[in-house]
């Protein structure tokens, strides 16, 4: 994990997104803030419904609709993606900031050849001839590891395997050398061996172009592989944020403990049952008062009722490790040690 350079690419402050639905107003994203620097991989982790995908799509402006309301800012260099005009947004989409989606089968136009789909993106932003664009695309396909790229240029999506399709999506996203790449569960629809290859492609990208990557996922294994920083989301809020090492070895929020505790580990005796966090995520239409995790938290008490702030609670705050749990750090360390003894929480350094 290389040290990120100081070039600030994305600056998200207090982003809020809500949608009107048949059942009421859904507060999907609630005051999310984070930053992305060049060459950095930020992983946004959470279960389904945590708001991580909505956050990612909002950065691309893909959540704009008559039902949606936004607040806060998301600056891509100087442009505020939340308030940008349509034409400003279109200029940077695919060019400065690009996205790789979860399901490559449905995310590619089924009746167009893949080569053409990538050429379309290039020609939307650059003034190149068809032939030049074609050569560029073949180069891109080779770069993401697609064999016989020149032939594959004319293939239809359904003629390719899942892994290849995802590589095509990545090639397409990279076609205009974006400085920010957002990857929404890029490996979820693929099997484990292909996963490793896709992650390799992302790593090479980061090394070669110093692009910043926002990786949205629920898979902590993937996160451990590639991420520099992690933001843990629950019920629309970031509940903990810090470097990968900090999060894995010194997690501060009970939800993170639950997440980490539910990973099987090879260096521990196998528990009788795979631990999981009991209960379900709360409704985002009528969320619980105060801390959103309170109903499922085994350590909840009345102090959790007022809305908790995302603060750096470990002394100093130089590591940039923040979390939303109001328990005293000493108590957190105590609880973690206790859970650790029976292999329930990821172990590591204590206070």
């Amino acid at each position: 994990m290389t040290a990120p350079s100081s070039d600030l690419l994305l600056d998200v402050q207090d982003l809020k997104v809500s949608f009107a639905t048949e059942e009421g107003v859904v507060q999907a994203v609630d005051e999310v803030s984070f930053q992305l620097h060049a060459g950095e991989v930020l992983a946004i982790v959470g279960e389904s419904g945590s708001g991580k995908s909505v956050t990612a799509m909002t950065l691309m402006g893909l959540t704009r609709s008559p039902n949606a309301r936004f607040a806060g800012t998301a600056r891509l260099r100087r442009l505020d993606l939340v308030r940008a005009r349509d034409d400003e947004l279109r200029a940077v989409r695919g060019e400065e900031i690009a996205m790789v989606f979860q399901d490559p089968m449905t995310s590619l136009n089924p009746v167009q050849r893949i080569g053409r789909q990538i050429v379309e993106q290039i020609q939307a932003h650059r003034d190149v001839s068809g032939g030049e664009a074609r050569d560029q695309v073949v180069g891109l396909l080779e770069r993401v590891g697609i064999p016989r790229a020149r032939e594959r240029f004319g293939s239809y999506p359904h003629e390719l395997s899942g892994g290849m399709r995802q590589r095509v999506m990545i090639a397409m996203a990279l076609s205009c050398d974006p400085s920010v790449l957002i990857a929404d569960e890029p490996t979820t629809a693929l099997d484990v061996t292909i996963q490793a290859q896709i992650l390799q492609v992302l790593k090479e990208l980061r090394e070669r172009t110093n692009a910043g990557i926002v990786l949205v996922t629920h898979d902590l294994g993937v996160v451990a592989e590639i991420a520099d920083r992690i933001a843990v989301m629950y019920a629309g809020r970031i509940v903990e944020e810090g470097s990968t090492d900090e999060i894995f070895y010194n997690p501060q929020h009970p939800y993170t403990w639950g997440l980490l505790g539910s990973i099987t580990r090879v260096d521990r005796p196998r528990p009788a049952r795979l631990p999981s966090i009991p209960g379900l995520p709360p409704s985002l239409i009528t969320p619980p008062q105060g801390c959103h995790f309170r109903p499922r938290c085994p350590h909840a008490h009345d102090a959790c009722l007022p809305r908790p702030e995302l603060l750096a609670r470990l002394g100093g705050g130089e590591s940039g490790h923040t979390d939303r749990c109001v328990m005293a750090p000493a108590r957190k360390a105590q609880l973690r040690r206790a859970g650790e003894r029976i292999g329930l929480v990821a172990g590591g350094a204590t206070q």
Partner: protein
Amino acid sequence: MGRFVVRRVAGMLVVMFAVSVLTFLIFNVIPNGDPADRMAGRNSTPVQIAAIEREWGFDKPIYTQYLTTMEKVFTGDLISYANQTSVVEEIKRGIPRTFALAIGAALIWLAMGTALGLYTAMRAGRFSDTLVTVLALIGISMPVFWLGALASYYLGFKLGVFPNGGYAEIGEAGLWEWVKHMILPWTVLATLFVGVYSRVLRSNILDTINDDYVRTARAKGLTERRVMVHHVLRNSLIPIVTLWGLDFGAVLGGGAILTETVFDLQGVGQYFAESIGQLDVPPVLAVTLFGAFFIVLLNTIVDIVYAALDPRIRLSR
């Protein structure tokens, strides 16, 4: 692609054969009574009936009858017993009129249906969408001959805006006269379909707009117009094109009977209706085969075009 075409055409021939057998059965076998008697029509003499029996081979086994019938149809040796005219000649006379009606109406409803479908999709949920939807629903709820009769009477006869029916040959009366005579029939026939097409296209567009690959297209930074035309529309129109081919075939194949009759266009459909009224079997037989041929032909063409437009289809089937 080539193999696909061959398979489809072979299938077409098989279906045509089956259709001919079915037609034969319907007219000669299924109904009660003596086929020769039926064919001879209302004012028949025993001599006529005997002659028919011999000529058509009704005393012979069924498959011979079938072969005789088919032979007569294909060699054009069919005589209408009601008015002693050559069936094939009559059909030939009616073809240009039926075609004129079908093609004109089909183009109109395709253009109008697409335009309205696009319009209502863009304004989904607003008043204009509801209004057009209501009009479309009314359009498909009207019997075409009712609309045609009223239009022909009020717009044609009473107001004199359009001719009161009949067909004008381009060669004789000129292009403008021909068009004037066709406008009402075209419009009436198209009304039925415009409603359906605009709703299908609207529904397709609204579905496609939410598809993942449209989201990807936007994420690529394409202009909204390019997204709509090259991704949404192109994919939404594919089912419309196939539907159009099928409907066009159905109209050619006999769906235009009512319109032709009401406007007295003397096309193939009207010939059929008049023959049926007189229980004149040979024309009915011939027109049915003629109609079925076009339907099957259009169906096959549609299948092939569909495969050309949507490459996923080529693998299945």
